[in-house]
C-alpha cells in the first residue's frame, strides 16, 4: 500500500472539475473498451489499464466524498499509483451499508440492487446513463466473443414475472434483460409458479428447427427447473444446436452435490446441449462478466482485471493458489465500484496462454468464502423457496 505524507483535509477536492476528469477517463479507457475484448497481452495491458484505473480513481475521489475519505485513510493518492494492485479495494459488502455514488442525484438513471433474500441487506448500485450504456456495450462485446455476433432465438429459463417489478431493479432482472440483447423471439420456459412449460418450449423450438438457439438462466434454476423437471417428466428437448449461458453461483447446487461435470452431463442428457458457458459476475460490477471458454476457464476481458489475495494478509497469491477474488473494472463511472474485494474464493490459472486463444488472465471460482452470506443470483430463489 502506498503511504502518502500529504495530510490535506480529505474533504477538499484538489482536482479540477468533474467533466475534465471524466474526459480523461474516457480517453484512457477507450483503447481497452473499444477493441475486441480479449486481444491485449498481459504486458501491453498492464500499463494501459493502470493509467485508466488511476484516472478513474481520481474521478471517484473527486466526486464521492466517502471514497475520498477511504483513500485518504489508507494514505493513498491515486496520482502516485504505479501498479493496479496498489489501489485499495472496497469490500462488496460496503455497498450494502453505504450509499456510494459519484454523480449528482439529478443524473441518476437507475438503481440496481444485488440479489439477496428479505432478511439480508442488498447492495445499492447507482447508475447514470453513461455507466448503464457502457455496461451494455461491454456485455455485448464480451458475450459476442463466445456466441458470435448474430442474435439467436432465446429461451429464458425463468418466469415472465422476473421482468414485472420495474421499480426495484434486482440483479436477476438485470441479468435476464442484459442477455435479452442477444436474443430474438424470446420464450420464457417457466410460468410464474416456476413450472416448466414443456409444450410451449417444444412449440417454440419447432419454429426454430435446425437453428442455433440461445438459452439463458441462473445456474440453480437451470438445474432445478429444467434438467430435474425434464427428468421427472421423462422428457428430453431437441437442443443439439443450443448454447447455454448460465451464472449466478453454485452454492446451492453444491449443497445438492451437483458439480460442474454433473451439471454439464445432466444438461447434455436432457437437452443435447454441449455448448455450455458459465459466467461469473456481480451486481456491484454489472456489465463486467467473466465467461467460461470451451476449455472451462473464466476469462478476464481487456477492460477488467482480477487479483487473487491471501485471506490472511491480503498479499497477492501466485498462479494456482487459492485466495479471495478481487475484481477491477473500468466500467463503473457513477459509483466507486471499480476495485472490489468479493466474497468469493478463486484461483488464477494463467495469463495469455489459454488454448482457446483469448489473451488475458483466466481463473476459476472455488466457491463463497466460508463466513459470507448465501447471496448469488441463482441462490436467491433457492433461499426463499419453500
Amino acid at each position: 500500500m502506498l503511504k502518502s505524507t500529504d495530510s490535506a483535509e480529505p474533504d477538499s477536492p484538489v482536482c479540477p472539475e468533474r467533466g475534465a476528469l471524466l474526459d480523461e477517463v474516457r480517453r484512457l479507457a477507450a483503447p481497452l473498451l473499444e477493441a475486441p475484448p480479449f486481444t491485449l497481452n498481459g504486458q501491453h495491458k498492464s500499463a494501459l489499464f493502470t493509467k485508466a484505473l488511476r484516472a478513474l480513481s481520481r474521478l471517484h475521489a473527486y466526486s464521492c466524498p466517502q471514497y475520498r475519505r477511504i483513500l485518504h485513510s489508507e494514505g493513498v493518492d491515486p496520482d502516485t499509483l504505479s501498479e493496479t494492485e496498489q489501489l485499495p479495494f472496497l469490500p462488496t459488502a460496503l455497498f450494502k451499508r453505504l450509499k456510494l455514488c459519484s454523480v449528482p442525484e439529478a443524473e441518476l438513471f437507475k438503481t440496481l440492487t444485488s440479489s439477496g433474500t428479505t432478511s439480508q441487506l442488498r447492495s445499492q448500485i447507482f447508475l447514470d446513463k453513461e455507466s448503464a450504456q457502457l455496461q451494455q456495450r461491454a456485455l455485448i462485446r464480451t458475450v459476442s466473443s463466445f456466441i458470435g455476433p448474430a442474435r439467436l432465438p432465446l429461451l429464458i429459463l425463468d418466469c415472465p414475472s422476473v421482468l414485472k417489478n420495474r421499480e426495484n431493479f434486482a440483479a436477476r432482472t438485470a441479468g435476464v434483460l442484459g442477455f435479452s440483447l442477444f436474443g430474438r423471439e424470446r420464450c420464457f420456459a417457466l410460468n410464474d409458479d416456476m413450472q416448466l412449460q414443456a409444450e410451449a418450449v417444444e412449440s417454440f423450438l419447432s419454429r426454430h428447427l435446425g437453428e442455433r438457439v440461445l438459452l439463458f438462466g441462473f445456474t440453480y434454476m437451470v438445474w432445478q427447473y429444467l434438467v430435474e423437471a425434464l427428468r421427472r417428466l421423462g422428457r428430453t428437448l431437441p437442443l443439439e444446436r443450443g448454447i447455454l449461458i448460465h451464472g449466478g453461483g453454485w452454492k446451492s447446487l453444491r449443497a445438492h452435490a451437483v458439480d460442474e461435470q454433473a451439471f454439464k452431463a445432466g444438461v447434455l442428457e436432457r437437452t443435447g446441449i454441449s455448448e455450455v458457458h458459465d459466467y461469473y459476475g456481480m451486481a456491484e460490477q454489472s456489465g463486467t462478466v467473466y465467461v467460461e471458454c470451451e476449455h472451462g476457464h473464466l476469462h478476464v476481458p481487456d477492460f477488467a482485471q482480477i487479483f487473487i489475495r491471501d485471506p490472511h494478509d491480503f498479499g497477492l497469491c501466485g498462479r494456482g493458489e487459492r485466495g479471495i477474488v478481487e475484481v477491477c473494472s473500468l466500467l463503473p463511472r457513477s459509483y466507486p465500484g471499480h476495485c472490489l474485494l468479493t466474497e468469493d474464493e478463486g484461483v488464477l490459472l494463467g495469463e495469455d496462454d489459454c488454448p482457446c486463444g483469448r489473451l488475458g488472465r483466466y481463473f476459476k471460482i472455488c466457491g463463497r468464502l466460508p463466513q459470507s452470506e448465501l447471496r448469488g443470483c441463482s441462490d436467491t430463489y433457492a433461499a426463499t423457496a419453500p
Partner: protein
Amino acid sequence: MDNLEKYTQAFCEAFEVEPEQAKNLKYQDIPAWDSVGHMGLISCLEDAFDIVMDPADIIELGSFDLGRTMLRDKYGVQL
C-alpha cells in the same frame, strides 16, 4: 398503412401511448419506456419490418427520431 404509420404504431403498442405523444418520445421520458419496455419496442419494430437488429443498435436506439434514422440508414426501411 405506410411505413411511418407502422413505425409509429410499434411505439404506440409497446408503450400504450397515442401517436402524437409517440413522435416526441425519448428513452426514459415515460415510465413505460425503461429497459424492459425497450426490449418490447424492439420486438414490435422487428416484427413490423421483419428485420433483426444488431445488439449494438438496440442500445443506441434512444428516441423516436433516432430509431427512424437508424431503420432507414442501416436496415433499408423506407421511412
